[in-house]
């Protein structure tokens, strides 16, 4: 993973997104341990406080839980929760952006549907 320091997205959000992606794709499975904040901050060259902030974002959503003295683990049902959340964001993040761009380029509804079907 690479952090983009010029991105609109704060670093801790980028880290949380990356962890979420890894969980959705199955790279880190439910019940498995995630890397420690130190490991993540060292490999990404970010402040441990920032890494912790990203992890806590997922702890607050119940995606990850902490076991005292052992580390952090992916909750059961995390994939489902994340998928639902991503689905609700799908319109804003992808569809809306696509429609704005399509309007700029003068593409009609028919053109767009054709393009989707081609994909």
């Amino acid at each position, binding site marked *: 993973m690479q952090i983009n*320091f010029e991105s*609109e997205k704060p670093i801790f959000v980028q880290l949380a997104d990356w962890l979420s992606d890894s969980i959705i794709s199955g790279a880190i499975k439910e019940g498995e341990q995630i890397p420690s904040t130190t490991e993540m*901050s060292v490999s990404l060259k*970010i*402040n*441990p406080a920032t890494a912790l902030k990203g992890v806590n974002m997922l702890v607050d959503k119940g995606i990850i839980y902490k076991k005292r003295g052992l580390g952090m683990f992916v909750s059961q049902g995390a994939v489902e929760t994340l998928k639902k959340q991503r689905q609700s964001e799908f319109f804003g993040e992808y569809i809306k952006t696509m429609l704005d761009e399509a309007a700029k380029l003068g593409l009609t509804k028919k053109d767009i549907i054709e393009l989707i079907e081609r994909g």
Partner: protein
Amino acid sequence: MRGIELKNLTKHYKDTKALEDVTLTIEYGKIYGLLGRNGAGKSTMVNLISNRIFPTSGEIFVDGEMSIENDEALRKIFTMSEHNLLPVDRKFKDAVKLVKEFYPELDDDYAFALAEKFELDVKKKLMSLSTGYSSIAKLIIALASGADYIFFDEPVLGLDPNHRELFYKELIDRYANTGSTFIISTHLIDECAGLIEKAIIIDKGRLVTAEDTDKIMENSYTVTGPAELVDKYTAGKTVVGSDTVGGIKSAYVKGKAENVPQGLEISKASLQSLFIQMTND
């Protein structure tokens, strides 16, 4: 309260005001960036804190104690700088021993483990090391020093990209394990932007800001578009600086972007570009 406090710290040389009325607190247990242009006063500040020079006026407190000629307070501070305070006619392993006399908390096992990672020849005299390795020797001793406040003055000068990368990673690891305070004075802001939690920016001897990097970034943005539109939009706002290429203008603005008209683009500015705007003449 734990931390280093500077109160109205001032240092004048004959005709130069190297540091002028600087008041700030370096909190214990954070990674700081000390940022300033050449001659801004970074090294003066570090030298004052480590008692290598004396202030013209003002005071320095380390964990609440006056630091001037106070050995106990000074033992809490370690400074790694270009100036070599290590004995150059000695080998690395002897230098480690020597430094340990003043810094009993120095972790020699860790120092030698790091030397191995950097492939530093510990049996060579320090003066016969290359520029890069001479810096590495100093960096390792600083990281291992066990001091509560560790200052790095341009730490990666002369280091190749691999060693720079390794240094930053080892610094984070050490920070996570010890919780000490690290203050990195540098020009290479892009390289360590993700690392530093707080930035102290000084310009011409004066303090510009000492704040959370996150806050500095959150409270400023870049607006780009046709110069006329940009000027209209930024009227009445605090503009830190701007660049114009052809008819397109980018302005660096303080605050949060609101009611942005069509045709203007808002983006985040990097810490480095904000720094350049804050310290430009």
